């Protein structure tokens, strides 16, 4: 279902007009109200009223996480603190957290955007939505909460209760929709198998997962294990929280809410804007935010733009599913690699689970990549021959694809260390050793 027909299906020409109007008023405001942007524009001789088009945005330097840290805590706010009604903090996936603020209008827009996210996945007022995102400084819990309330669904804010408790609530409260991080969904799914709960006891139908990249393989395994239809959603605190882009039932990319954000894709190394269809780092500009507008914020997330219209009726451009963060990239034997590239190979190897860890070490001056991957429970560990075959297959495939030799270690299911359901994908020990 489309929550906001007017804006989500707006003709391309109209959305471009709206974007330029909103961009111009945002630039005028940040120049007037945010000392950082005033100084930046002056330094680069940027006159806000000379920005005539989205393409003109390119004249403005990027805003980065470092910018936010330098202006910690309130330096990027465009309104006095008395107009800020909410303060959140970024999840701090990388480095120290940053502060974000919301005015009343910002919260209202956020709720509306989250209602779009939920409606696109098929959530209605008849659903019971269990929100297993952290409620706190992190934006996830509150964002979903507002959206689900606006739709009129029954909200169960379980936050990060332990998987077993989540399952009992899910069963007893007759939850139909689960919102959480994909890795937490997986932890719940694993617990469900362990508890041997009959699937008929659950009435779950939809899952909406975000806050970290997850593969199609992970999607199908969550769908199978939790008996749901799983949707991907994207957001980040610096921009809004969840509610930036989200999948519709076609699941062919995430629809960007273009009446609130302008997206660019850049080459993460050169900063050059890339044409639609090319993979690069997502850069976002907010055009409705009042408390903390962001101009050309480097998200660190890698994706590409899809311009073809979607049969669902929304006319917005779409972002391809996110594979990984640009700062997760590592270089080994001169080859640039993202965890997702390894993941996509693992996904094709039988008997492996979607849980893996990449460990990079320096031995005798040589860099070594070790892939630790969990194997399915139904493989018995004394079937040495079979295990050897899996190992060799992974090594062979990676050599064929990327020309590097790697070590592979198969570990038992659930052996890799998880923190809040997340596995740290890359452990680079090269700098610690010297």
């Amino acid at each position: 279902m489309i929550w906001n027909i007017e804006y989500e299906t707006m003709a391309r020409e109209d959305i471009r007009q709206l974007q330029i109007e909103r961009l111009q008023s945002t630039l005028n405001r940040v120049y007037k109200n945010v000392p950082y942007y005033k100084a930046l524009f002056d330094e680069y001789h940027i006159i806000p009223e000379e920005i005539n088009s989205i393409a003109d945005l390119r004249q403005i330097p990027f805003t980065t996480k470092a910018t936010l840290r330098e202006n910690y805590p309130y330096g990027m706010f465009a309104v006095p603190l008395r107009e800020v009604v909410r303060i959140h903090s970024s999840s701090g996936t990388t480095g120290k957290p940053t502060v974000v603020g919301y005015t009343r209008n910002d919260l209202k827009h956020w709720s509306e955007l989250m209602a779009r996210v939920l409606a696109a996945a098929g959530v209605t007022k008849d659903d019971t939505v269990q929100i297993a995102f952290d409620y706190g400084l992190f934006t996830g819990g509150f964002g979903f909460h507002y959206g689900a309330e606006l739709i009129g669904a029954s909200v169960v804010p379980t936050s990060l209760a332990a998987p077993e408790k989540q399952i009992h609530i899910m069963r007893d409260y007759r939850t139909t929709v689960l919102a959480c991080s994909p890795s937490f969904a997986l932890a719940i799914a694993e617990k469900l198998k362990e508890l041997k709960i009959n699937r008929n006891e659950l009435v779950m139908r939809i899952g909406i997962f975000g806050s970290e990249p997850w593969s199609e393989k992970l999607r199908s395994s969550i769908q199978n294990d939790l008996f749901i239809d799983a949707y991907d959603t994207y957001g980040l605190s610096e921009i809004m929280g969840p509610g930036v882009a989200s999948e519709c039932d076609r699941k062919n990319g995430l629809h960007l809410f273009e009446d609130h954000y302008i997206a660019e894709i850049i080459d993460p190394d050169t900063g050059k804007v890339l044409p639609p269809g090319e993979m690069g780092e997502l850069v976002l500009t907010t055009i409705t935010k009042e408390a903390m507008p962001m101009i050309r914020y480097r998200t660190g997330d890698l994706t590409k733009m899809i311009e073809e219209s979607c049969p669902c009726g929304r006319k917005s451009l779409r972002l391809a599913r996110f594979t990984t963060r640009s700062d997760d990239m590592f270089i080994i034997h001169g080859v640039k690699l993202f965890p997702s590239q390894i993941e996509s190979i693992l996904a094709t190897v039988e008997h492996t689970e979607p849980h893996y860890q990449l460990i990079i070490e320096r031995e005798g001056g040589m860099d070594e990549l070790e892939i630790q991957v969990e194997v399915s429970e139904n493989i018995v560990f004394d079937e040495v021959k079979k295990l050897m075959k899996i190992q060799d297959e992974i090594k062979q495939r990676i050599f064929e694809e990327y020309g590097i030799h790697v070590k592979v270690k198969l570990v038992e299911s659930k052996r890799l260390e998880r923190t809040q359901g997340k596995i740290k994908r890359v452990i680079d020990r090269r700098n610690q050793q010297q």
Partner: protein
Amino acid sequence: MLRIQNIRSFYGNLLVLKNLSLHINEGEIVTLIGANGSGKSTLLKSIMGLLPPRQGLIVFQDKDITHLRTEKIVRLGIALVPEGRHIFAPLSVQDNLLLGSYSRYSFRNKSEVMADFDRIFDLFPHLVKKRKQLAGTLSGGEQQMLAIGRALMSRPRILLLDEPSMGLAPIIVEDIFAKITKLRSEEKTTILLVEQNAEMALDISDRGYVLETGKIVFQGPREDLLENAEIKRAYLGK
């Protein structure tokens, strides 16, 4: 319906509208608020071709009207109710209205124009009894109604109103605003309203823009503008 992109307008060498973009959809009431000298009236003059922008584009129903002459623009369906009303004081009410049909009047469609009188008098029954009276003898509120009526005689698709509440008693202003709402609901006229009386204007609007020294600093649906703390403080006296 009306789309303005990146216009710059000058009085002599003085840049008054600094890269301004806005749009009005068919059937909308859109309000433009801003302090004195922020460029509100200049924008209306630029739309009407009275002060064509030096840069940028004005598109009305997919037609570029940026450099058209005013008569042409009126004929395409845009009419202005100017600030201070500018009625022709020595002429009768009826003659003032007749002048409003100047752009389309001809001997052949005389009856059509005459029929429009009834339309205007339906909307402003106040004026019926005074149709022969000199416009200069009308009260301020009646003059404003006459100015609106005169603009409607060109059968506009979109009506631009410049400070219709100026100098009028609150009760009269309410009446005028009620007529504006009625124009939209009954005649399907699209309306761009420039007002100092920001709260009343926003109340009847769908969307609004806030102009500051020739630049738009806020824009959005009515509810957003009414909720914005800076707008409340600067324009709504709260």
